C-alpha cells in the first residue's frame, strides 16, 4: 500500500517546495493490490448490476480527426438508447467530443439525461498559450458543454514548474464556471507513479471536479495500477478535507470484464459512495458494445455476436 502522505488542510500554495515531497508510491505493492482486486469473482446478479452501472457511468467518446456531425449524431442516439432492442438498458452518462462538435452534440442529446463533455485546452498535447486555452474553454461552455475535459501541460509538470500547471487549472476552472472540470493527467507521459500521485494531488488542489487518466491518444493509457494510485490520492484528499473528487479512467478499456474490474477497484478503494456517475466515469469508445453483448448474454443465455450491435 502506498503510504498516505501528511497533507495540509486545503493544500495552500506555494506548492513548489512541497510537491516533490508528498510521499512516494510503493510501485510493487500498488501493482500487487491492483492485480489482486482484478481477480475478484463477480457472480451473476452482481455482474448484471456492475454492467448496468458501467453503462450509466460511461462517457461515450469520439475524438478523431475524421469526426463529422453525422457521426456525433449517431453517437448521441446510441448514448441515449444504447441497445435499441432492450429499453431496460439505461442511457450513458455523457458523450465526449471535440469542441467543434459541441453544438451538434448539445442539440442531439437535448431532452435526455445524457450530458455533453468537450475536450479543451489544446487537447491532446496541451501545448498552447494559456489565453488560447481559456478562449477554447469559454467557447465550449458558451455553446452548452456540461463538462470540460482539460489536459495539463505535461511539459511544465515534468520540468518542475508545478505552479504554472496549478495556475492553469485554477484559471480553467474559473473560466468553465458551472461546467464540471475533468483534468486529464496523461499518465503515460508522467512516467512514474510518484508523478501520477503528485499530479493528482495538484489537480485536486487546484479545483478539479474529476481527475482523468489519459487522452486515449497514447498507448498504455488507463491501467489498473495507475487508476488505483489516483483513487488512493482521491481517498487521501477525502480523508484530509472531506471533499469528494471524481475519477475517470480512459483509454484502453475495451472489454466488459475490464470495466467490472475497474468498478471492483473503485468499490474497494473509495467505497459505495463513489459508485455513481457523478463521481466516476469510464471513458471509452469501444467498451459499450462489449458491455451490451454481455448484458444481452445474461438476459438471453446465449453468447452474442458483434454483428448484432451497431458499429461505433
Amino acid at each position, binding site marked *: 500500500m502506498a503510504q498516505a502522505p501528511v497533507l495540509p488542510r486545503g493544500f495552500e500554495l506555494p506548492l513548489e517546495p512541497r510537491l516533490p515531497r508528498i510521499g512516494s508510491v510503493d510501485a510493487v505493492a500498488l501493482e500487487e493490490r491492483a492485480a489482486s482486486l482484478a481477480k475478484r469473482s463477480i457472480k451473476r446478479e452482481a455482474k448484471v448490476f456492475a454492467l448496468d452501472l458501467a453503462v450509466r457511468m460511461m462517457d461515450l467518446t469520439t475524438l478523431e480527426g475524421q469526426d463529422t456531425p453525422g457521426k456525433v449524431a449517431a453517437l448521441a442516439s446510441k448514448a441515449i438508447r444504447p441497445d435499441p432492442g432492450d429499453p431496460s438498458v439505461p442511457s450513458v452518462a455523457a458523450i465526449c467530443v471535440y469542441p467543434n462538435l459541441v453544438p451538434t452534440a448539445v442539440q442531439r442529446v437535448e431532452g435526455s439525461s445524457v450530458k455533453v463533455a468537450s475536450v479543451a485546452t489544446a487537447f491532446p498535447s496541451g501545448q498552447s498559450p494559456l489565453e488560447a486555452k481559456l478562449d477554447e474553454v469559454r467557447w465550449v461552455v458558451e455553446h452548452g458543454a456540461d463538462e470540460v475535459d482539460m489536459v495539463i501541460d505535461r511539459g511544465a509538470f515534468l520540468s518542475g514548474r508545478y505552479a504554472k500547471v496549478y495556475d492553469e487549472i485554477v484559471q480553467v476552472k474559473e473560466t468553465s464556471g458551472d461546467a464540471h472540470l475533468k483534468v486529464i493527467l496523461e499518465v503515460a507521459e508522467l512516467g512514474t507513479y510518484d508523478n501520477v500521485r503528485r499530479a493528482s494531488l495538484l489537480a485536486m488542489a487546484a479545483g478539479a471536479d474529476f481527475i482523468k487518466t489519459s487522452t486515449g491518444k497514447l498507448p498504455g493509457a488507463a491501467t489498473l495500477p495507475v487508476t488505483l494510485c489516483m483513487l488512493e490520492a482521491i481517498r487521501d484528499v477525502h480523508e484530509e478535507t472531506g471533499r469528494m473528487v471524481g475519477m475517470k479512467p480512459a483509454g484502453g478499456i475495451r472489454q466488459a470484464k475490464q470495466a467490472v474490474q475497474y468498478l471492483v477497484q473503485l468499490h474497494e478503494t473509495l467505497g459505495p459512495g463513489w459508485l455513481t456517475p457523478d463521481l466516476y466515469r469510464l471513458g471509452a469508445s469501444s467498451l459499450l458494445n462489449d458491455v451490451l453483448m454481455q448484458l444481452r448474454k445474461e438476459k438471453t443465455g*446465449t453468447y452474442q455476436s458483434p454483428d*448484432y450491435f451497431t458499429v461505433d
Partner: protein
Amino acid sequence: MTRLPVKKTYKLFIGGAFPRSESGRTYEAEGQNVARASRKDVRDAVRAARGTLPKWAGMTAYNRGQILYRVAEMIEARTAEFAGLCTGRPEVERAVDRIVWYAGWADKLAQVLGSSNPVAGPYFNFTVPEPTGVVGVIAPDEPPLLGLVSRVLPALTGGNAVVALASETHPLAAIELAEALATSDVPGGVVNLLTGRRAELAPWLASHMDVNALDVTGADGDSPELERAAADNVKRVVHGDPDAQSPWEIASFLELKTVWHPVGQ
C-alpha cells in the same frame, strides 16, 4: 536405468494452442483422462475462429489447397499413432486420401459453383461462392478419425473456420488430429477441437450468435433442440453423412453471392 515414457496430457486445441479446459475438469474416455471443455472454452474457440476467419477466407484458394495437402502429409507421417486411436490403418489411409481429395477441390470450387450470368444491360453479373463464416461441427462417434475429417474438411476447403466438438466416446483421434494440424501450416484458430460432454457443450455452440453454420451430423437425438437454438440467428444447419465425400459437402458451407459490375469501367 529404464526410462519412463512421457505420458501424454490430453488437452483442447483452441486458437492454435493446447490449453487445458478452463474449468480444469477432465473425464475418462478410451481409458484416458481427457479434457472436459466448459462453455467458456466454446466461447473462446468461437472467438479464436472468428479472429482468424478473415485471414483464412482471404487466402487464395490455391494456397488453402496447399495447406490442406500439408495436413494430409502430416497425418501420413503419423499413420502408426493414428492407427492405434481409430479402427486401424485402413481408416487412417482413407482419411489421408480424403484430405488430399478435398485439398484438390479448393481451387476448383469457384469454377464449378460460380458462374457468369447473362443479364440484359451493360453489366457483368457473376455468382461467386463465399465462405459462410464460423462453422460449428458436432462430430460423429463412428468412425472416430474419418468421421471427423469428413465433416471438418468440407468446411475448411470452402474457407470457413471451424469449431468442432470431438466425439465424446472416441476423442483421442481428434486430439491426435490437433497435433497434426498444429504442426502443419493451418493458421491457429482455423480449426478448434474441443473434447468434453456433448450434451453440455452442443447447446452453447448451437445458440452462439457468432456461429454461422452448424453441422449436426454427430448430434443423434439432440438434433431438434439444437436446430431450434440455431434458428435464432438463422444458422445454416447441415445433416451430413459421417463417411461422405462430395463437392456438395463443400457447397453446403458456402454462400453463393451474386455481384454486378458495370461493363467498361
